[in-house]
């Protein structure tokens, strides 16, 4: 059994949800796949506490959906200096935890997850950026561990994708740096 079978099985069980564009803009195609956990899916499907939360979650859903078809995606070389990159691999790299960033409106949201295969991202946990404080804070470490635990709870023995190059994870990514 492959991790691909595992993903499909989790979708059938309602524990993972494949997020797909309801339509594609001209010239775009589905070049990647993104799956969201029950935790993330709940943010997108509601109900929400108040209208501002509903709006926040709607925007974040569009940010995650962008992973499927955007060409290219801007990836931060260093998550500590990520600027406004779309996503980055968090530190330490051995954890293989990545985040997708939804900046606006405040509060910023970070959706943490791991790659199951190249171009296949599993979005697992939802974090409010300001609650994580500075990088290397206990809150960040807790968030990274929570994501890793969510992975283990879903995939058990299957390891996330590991790589040294952006191209090991994502097709058509560019990486950002300060001017």
């Amino acid at each position, binding site marked *: 059994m492959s991790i691909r079978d595992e993903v499909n099985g989790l979708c059938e069980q309602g524990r993972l949800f494949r997020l797909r564009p309801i339509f594609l803009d001209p010239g775009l195609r589905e070049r990647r796949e993104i799956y969201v956990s029950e935790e993330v899916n709940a943010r997108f*499907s509601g109900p929400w506490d108040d209208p501002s939360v509903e709006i926040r979650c*709607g925007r974040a*859903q569009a940010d995650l*959906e962008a992973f499927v078809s955007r060409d290219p995606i801007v990836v931060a070389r260093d998550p500590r200096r990520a600027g406004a*990159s779309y996503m980055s691999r968090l530190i330490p790299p051995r954890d293989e935890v990545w985040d997708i960033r939804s900046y606006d409106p405040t509060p910023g949201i970070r959706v943490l997850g791991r790659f199951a295969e190249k171009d296949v991202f599993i979005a697992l946990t939802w974090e409010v950026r300001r609650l994580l404080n500075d990088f290397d804070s206990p809150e960040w470490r807790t968030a990274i561990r929570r994501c890793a635990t969510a992975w283990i709870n879903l995939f058990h023995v299957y390891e996330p994708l590991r790589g040294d*190059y952006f191209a090991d994870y994502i097709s*058509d990514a560019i990486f950002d740096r300060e001017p």
Partner: protein
Amino acid sequence: MIESLDLDIDKIPLARLAFFRERLRHHFHQLILKKFLALQDGRSPEFTKKKLADRIHRRPEVITRLLGSAGNLTLDTLSDLLLGMGAIPEAQVVDLVSKLQEPEFSPKKMEHIETPSLYSATLVRPLTAPQNGGAATLR
């Protein structure tokens, strides 16, 4: 959720409105980023973020942020950035119903996607010196 876009529905849910606003930002951001990369890869390889920043009276770090993600992209910024690159946007209106393909949370199974890798050798290890053999880098 697609049903929430039907013309018979009195109120489109706020989450839907927000989703499509952000989606539009991503669409425009994509146009900006592609134009910038096309300039660098084509007739103006020396066209840097700093040059673009100078042309539209912005700081380079602002250009870095604007090229990085859709963020809170406004029509003014869209116009400025494209004009800074010698371009303007064009828009058209299409009926959404004709564009819909499938539910966003699809039961469709995971499939293998074959994608050409344009940027094949960018080191991701963040605590080592950057190596950028042939990779596309925003500069």
